[in-house]
């Protein structure tokens, strides 16, 4: 039913467009493609002329299709989204796509039992398929134009759906996940309403700060939307405060890449398969982000401006992103070079590879997030890389020292643990690494940094502080009055009672912990006594 309306709308658009671009209409494979060509030429440099043309088209489309919400909300450049259902986008079964369809059902108020159930079932299935690719799929259209009331309405509907379904079912979990996302969006919408006075624009979760010309420095930046240069002295431009997305003032309405910070906040994890490439066919020969046709063989025929298609002027060379293995058009993939986490954790390979803009912005935001559990991902790495082995030992020691410093008044007063401030996660765990950590291991910086802190901590615990010293151990086997600490070399820590013994004493004499033996004996004794007392009572 809704599908029909969409199609009639697109037909109307097609008719209009074919009128405008009459010269090319016989060449174009389908009329929707014509729109695309127009968009392409925006990118190629015919920009301004065709730009106004497409805007005209867009405006007309808006008028023609006033009944269709989706089209209304999407900017003119996006009108090729109309064939949404026609081909599978890069990743056919990503939850975001499905959740958007689910949300559409929620919004369109035409979701009687069956429809919504199907949508939810899809959601469930997609949910089980995994969430990882979420944010690299197509951003759902129209979300950012939702008003606060609409969002709150969806939240309410989502809540009632949750109450309707069975407890601890997969469906409920999926719904709860959706609810969280909706809540976040509500929050975002509220914030944007607050800050809009300061000139910051909230779009697709970006916080776009306007930069007005003339900028003092002649900056040579490029637009993330149209890939053209932004002349700092002439153009108004926007830059996202969280992910660094940058675009022309005129392109701001066509922003379609969701801010990388959303993915970083909702699901901070890397793809850890090295360049998981499938191939252009899986993407239907379209750019993974903007869906422009990309192919290694140039199209036959003549462009809308009368030029024959060539590889150069069609500008549709596919570029592979080494992070997610998808192909992008040159406007979405600038051959930016980044170190890739998958190659580091599996190959200890720090060579920079080309990635898409999207991946670059994501990787930059993720760089300092401790999300790599190296021991789980690749335990052999610790043997293979010496520095990593010593970093591991140092970090484990620091965690033990933290127990001492956390209990020590003087250490707290002098804020010793603050020394680890720049790497907060080192205080919390010994296993998680950020990509920056690994880069620093490779450069040798991290080992020295940790050694310095290790020294200053152990100086406090073993020499300066009487209280910390008092919390050391004396080996119960050899009973030499030398105070040893669990972070010293040549000691063993009992797994049962955490007593510390000399490694030599432990292995050569007993290989049992005397304190554990004592505690066991005491327990037995108490048990016997308890029994005898009971008997006495009887």
């Amino acid at each position, binding site marked *: 039913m809704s599908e029909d309306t969409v199609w009639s709308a697109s037909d109307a658009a097609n008719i209009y467009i074919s009128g405008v671009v009459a010269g090319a209409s016989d060449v174009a494979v389908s009329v929707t493609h014509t729109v695309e060509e127009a968009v392409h030429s925006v990118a190629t440099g015919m920009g301004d002329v065709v730009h106004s043309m497409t805007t005209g088209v867009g405006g007309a489309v808006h008028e023609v299709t006033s009944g269709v919400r989706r089209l209304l909300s999407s900017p003119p450049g996006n009108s090729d989204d109309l064939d949404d259902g026609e081909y599978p986008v890069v990743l056919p079964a990503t939850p975001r796509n499905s959740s958007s369809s689910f949300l559409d059902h929620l919004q369109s108020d035409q979701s009687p039992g069956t429809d919504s159930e199907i949508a939810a079932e899809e959601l469930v299935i997609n949910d089980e398929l995994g969430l990882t690719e979420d944010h690299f799929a197509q951003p759902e259209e129209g979300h950012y134009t939702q008003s606060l009331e609409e969002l709150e309405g969806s939240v309410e509907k989502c809540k009632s759906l949750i109450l309707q379904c069975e407890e601890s079912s997969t469906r409920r979990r999926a719904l709860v996940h959706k609810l969280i996302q909706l809540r976040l969006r509500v929050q975002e919408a509220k914030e944007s309403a607050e800050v809009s006075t300061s000139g910051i624009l909230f779009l697709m979760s970006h916080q776009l700060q306007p930069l007005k010309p003339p900028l003092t420095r002649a900056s040579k930046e490029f637009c993330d939307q149209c890939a053209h240069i932004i002349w700092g002295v002439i153009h108004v431009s926007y830059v996202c405060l969280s992910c660094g997305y940058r675009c022309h003032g005129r392109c701001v309405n066509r922003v379609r890449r969701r801010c990388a910070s959303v993915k970083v906040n909702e699901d901070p994890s890397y793809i850890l398969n090295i360049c998981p490439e499938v191939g252009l066919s899986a993407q239907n020969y379209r750019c993974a982000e903007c869906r422009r046709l990309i192919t290694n063989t140039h199209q036959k025929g003549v462009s809308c401006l009368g030029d024959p298609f060539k590889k150069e002027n069609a500008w549709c060379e596919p570029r592979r992103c080494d992070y997610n293995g998808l192909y992008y058009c040159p406007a979405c993939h600038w051959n930016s070079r980044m170190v890739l986490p998958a190659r580091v954790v599996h190959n200890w390979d720090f060579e920079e590879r080309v990635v898409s803009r999207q991946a670059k912005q994501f990787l930059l935001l993720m760089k300092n997030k401790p999300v790599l559990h190296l021991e789980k991902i690749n335990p052999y790495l610790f043997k293979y890389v010496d520095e990593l082995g010593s970093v591991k030992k140092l970090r484990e020691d620091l965690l033990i020292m933290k*127990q*001492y410093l956390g209990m020590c008044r003087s250490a707290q007063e002098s804020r010793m643990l603050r020394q680890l401030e720049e790497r907060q996660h080192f205080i919390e765990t010994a296993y998680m690494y950020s990509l920056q950590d690994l880069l620093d291991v490779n450069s040798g910086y991290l080992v020295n940094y940790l050694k310095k802190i290790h020294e200053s901590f152990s100086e406090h615990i073993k020499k300066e502080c*009487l*209280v910390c*010293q*008092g*919390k050391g151990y*004396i080996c119960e086997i050899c009973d030499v009055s030398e105070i040893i*600490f669990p972070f010293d070399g040549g000691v063993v820590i009992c797994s049962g009672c955490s007593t*510390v013994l000399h490694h030599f004493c432990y292995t050569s004499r007993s290989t049992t912990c005397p304190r554990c033996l004592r505690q066991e004996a005491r327990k037995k004794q108490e048990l016997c006594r308890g029994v005898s007392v009971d008997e006495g009572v009887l």
Partner: protein
Amino acid sequence: MASRKKILLKVIILGDSGVGKTSLMNQFVNKKFSNQYKATIGADFLTKEVMVDDRLVTMQIWDTAGQERFQSLGVAFYRGADCCVLCYDVTSPNSFKSLDSWRDEFLIQASPRDPDHFPFVVLGNKIDLENRAVSTKRAQQWCHSKNEVPYFETSAKEAINVELAFQTIARNALAQESEVDIGHEFPDQIKLSNDNKAKQDACSC
């Protein structure tokens, strides 16, 4: 000669969690009491100067964590203790029963030279409460069996017997300390090494 030296007495307070170790120490050192319970984490010490038989001594009183989960670190501070105070709660028979294990554990970890005659003091705390569960007789019997350990019934809240108990603790600790002093004459003699150095310097010219 010993009287001129500054004397430091190391006292360790042990006992189950919640018997009032920290309260007893606070009452003695700061003359303060709080009804609020706050578990001690790890161990810490306070110092107080007291007069014992006309001699000024500094007491270093180590308060410890009774709860097992806060005893994750070592107890090297037991070493060199001059007196050990074992506390229990007169309203809790279990806290009295565990005195044995606290005493044993202390003797093993501190390994004093003469374990049988090491000065312990037992304090039965919270006598201000009405629901008493451990009788004085029972406690005295236990103390008698452990080589006549001094026994006091105290209340940190009402400051009953606290001063007296710590006076006894200080006196017994001092007795232990002076015994140890005799043993410590060896290090004093080794001071000769300084002279050796001086001689070496003289030679090198």
